[in-house]
C-alpha cells in the first residue's frame, strides 16, 4: 500500500541550522497493516508522517501510495488518499463550525467541491449513524460548534472525520497524547474499532510502549531518522515493554518510560 524508498529530509538547508532528519529511509506497509511507530523525541517520526502527507517536500527519495507516485503531489491533493489525526485536538476540527458542517467537509475529502449545498439533507442520517459509534451522545448535538467540545470529544470527532471517507492510509501522530489517561484509552479503543470496521491501513505514532505493543500487527522503532527495529506477527504480540526498553537503550536514552 505504502512504499517509501530512500527518503531524505534536510531542514534549513544551507544554513548553520542545517539538520538531516531522515537519511535514506525505506519502509513498506502492506494493505491492512496497522503499524505502531515509536522512537525518542526528535527521531523523525512526525517528519516522516508530514512527508507522507505532503506538509514538507523531501530532498530525496520517493513515496508511492497504492502504486501511485505522490512524492511531489501537493498536500491538499494527496489528502484525497489520507486520513490524518494530529496530536493537538484543536487542529483536527474547525472550532467555529458546527459538528455537522465539520463532518460534511470531511465527507467531501477527495471529492470535487462545487456550488451544491455544503450539507445535504441525506447526509444528516449518515452522520448520526456514524456519531453513534463514538458513544458520546454527539448524534444529538449535530448543530453544536466543534469548539465547545472537550479535547477528547474533539479528538474522537477528528478520528471519525479522518475515516468517514475511507482513506488508503490513516496517519495518527500521537493523537491521544494531549488527553487524560481515561480518555486516551477510550480514543485508542475507538481507533481500533474504526480501523477494524473499515479495514484501514494505519500508521500510528505513540510514546506509550504498552499501546505500541497492544495495538496493531506490526511495530517499528525509529532512531535518528532511521528504522532500527521492525517486528510483526507473533513476535510482536509476545513483546514486553522491557524488551523494547532494552532495544531502546541500545540506540538511545532519550525516550521516556510511558
Amino acid at each position, binding site marked *: 500500500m505504502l512504499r517509501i524508498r530512500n527518503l531524505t529530509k534536510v531542514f534549513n538547508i544551507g544554513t548553520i541550522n542545517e539538520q538531516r532528519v531522515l537519511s535514506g529511509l525505506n519502509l513498506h506497509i502492506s494493505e491492512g497493516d496497522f503499524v505502531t511507530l515509536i522512537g525518542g523525541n526528535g527521531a523523525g517520526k512526525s517528519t516522516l508522517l508530514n512527508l507522507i*502527507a505532503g506538509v514538507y517536500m523531501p530532498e530525496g527519495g520517493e513515496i508511492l501510495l497504492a502504486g501511485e507516485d505522490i512524492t511531489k503531489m501537493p*498536500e*491538499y*491533493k494527496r*489528502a*484525497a488518499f*489520507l486520513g*490524518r489525526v*494530529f496530536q493537538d485536538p*484543536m*487542529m*483536527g*476540527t*474547525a*472550532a*467555529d*463550525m458546527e459538528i455537522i*458542517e*465539520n463532518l*460534511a*467537509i*470531511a465527507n*467531501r*475529502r*477527495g*471529492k470535487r*467541491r*462545487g*456550488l*451544491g*449545498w*455544503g*450539507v445535504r439533507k441525506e447526509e444528516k442520517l449518515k452522520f448520526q449513524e456514524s456519531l453513534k459509534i463514538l458513544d458520546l451522545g454527539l448524534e444529538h448535538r449535530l448543530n453544536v460548534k466543534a469548539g*465547545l467540545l*472537550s479535547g477528547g470529544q474533539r479528538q474522537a470527532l477528528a478520528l471519525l*472525520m*479522518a475515516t468517514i471517507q475511507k482513506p488508503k492510509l490513516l496517519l495518527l501522530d500521537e493523537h491521544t497524547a494531549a488527553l487524560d489517561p481515561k480518555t486516551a484509552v477510550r480514543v485508542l479503543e475507538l481507533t481500533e474499532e474504526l480501523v477494524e470496521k473499515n479495514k484501514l491501513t494505519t500508521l500510528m505514532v505513540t510514546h506509550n510502549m504498552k499501546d505500541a505493543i497492544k495495538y496493531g500487527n506490526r511495530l517499528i522503532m525509529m532512531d535518528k531518522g532511521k528504522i532500527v527495529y521492525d517486528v510483526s506477527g507473533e513476535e510482536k504480540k509476545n513483546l514486553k515493554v522491557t524488551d523494547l526498553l532494552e532495544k531502546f537503550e541500545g540506540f538511545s536514552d532519550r525516550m521516556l518510560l510511558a
Partner: protein
Amino acid sequence: MEGLLLSINSAVAQGVLWGIMTLGVYITYKILNYADLTVDGSFALGGAVSAILIILGWDPFLSLVIAFCSGLLAGVVTGVLHTKLKIPAILSGILSMIALYSINLTIMGGKANIALLGMETIFTKAQLILPAGFDKAMVSLSIGAVFVLAIMGILYWFFGTEIGALIRATGNNENMARAMGGNTDMMKILGLLLSNGLVALSGALVAQSQGYADVGMGTGTIVMGLAAVIIGEVLFGTRINYFLRMTSVVTGSVIYRIIIALVLRIGLKSSNLKLFTAIVVAMALSIPEIKAKFVKPKINLEKAE
C-alpha cells in the same frame, strides 16, 4: 432640528452604501481571518473606474459591473502575493493598496478627482422612477437597500455551498481544511476576490451617489469597515446565524455613519474624524483584553465535566 434629521437621513443612506464595503471586510476579517488592507485601494478603485466610465459615456449600471470586476482583480493580486509568493497577509494588502493608489490616479487620467456634475448616474436614473417626494438621501437609501439585500442573499447562499463552507473552514482552521483536501490557497484567493469586488462596488456606488470620485476616498476604509463589524458584534453578539450576522454588519455601518454625523454636529472638526475613528476601533478591539483582565469569568457548571 430639521438639520439634524436631514444629516441623519443622509448618514443612514451613506451607511447602507458603505455597508456593502463592510460586508466585504466581514468576509476577509471574520470569515477568512485575514486583515486585508487592499480595501483602502479597491474602494477608491471602484469609485475611479465607475466615474471615468460614466464620463466616457458608459451606462452607469454597467460601470458598476466593471468596477466590481476591477475589485475582483485587486483581490486576486493580493491573494497571489500572499499565497503563492508567501508575503505576509498584512504586507500583501499594503503592497496592493499602495500600487492601487498609482493605478487609480492613472485611471482617473492623472487627476485627483472626477466630478460627475450633470452626468447620469444610477441615482439620477432612479430618481425618475421613484415617487416624486423622494429626496436625494431617500433615493440613495432605496438603491443601497436593494443592493445590500441582494448581496446578503447571494452571500448567504454562497457560504452555505460546498466551496463556501470550505472558505469558512480555511479561515477557521487552515490545517484541517487542507487535511480534508481543500485547496486553501485557492480558497483564500476566492475570499479576497469576493471581498474586494464588493468593496469596489461599494466605492462605485458611493462615488455615484456623492457625485464625484476622489483618489483619497478609500483612505481608512479598512478601519471604518472594522468599526462597523465591531459595532454590529457589540449590538447583536456573535451567537447568531450568518444572515443575521451580515445584517448586523450593515447595521453597524449605518450606526457608525450616524455616530459620525452626530459628533460632527456636536462640533468635532472633520479633520479629526479619522483620529476619532481610530480611537473608537482601538477601544472596541481591546474590549476582550480589558474584560479578561478585570472581569472574572463566571464558571459554567454545565460545561465542566
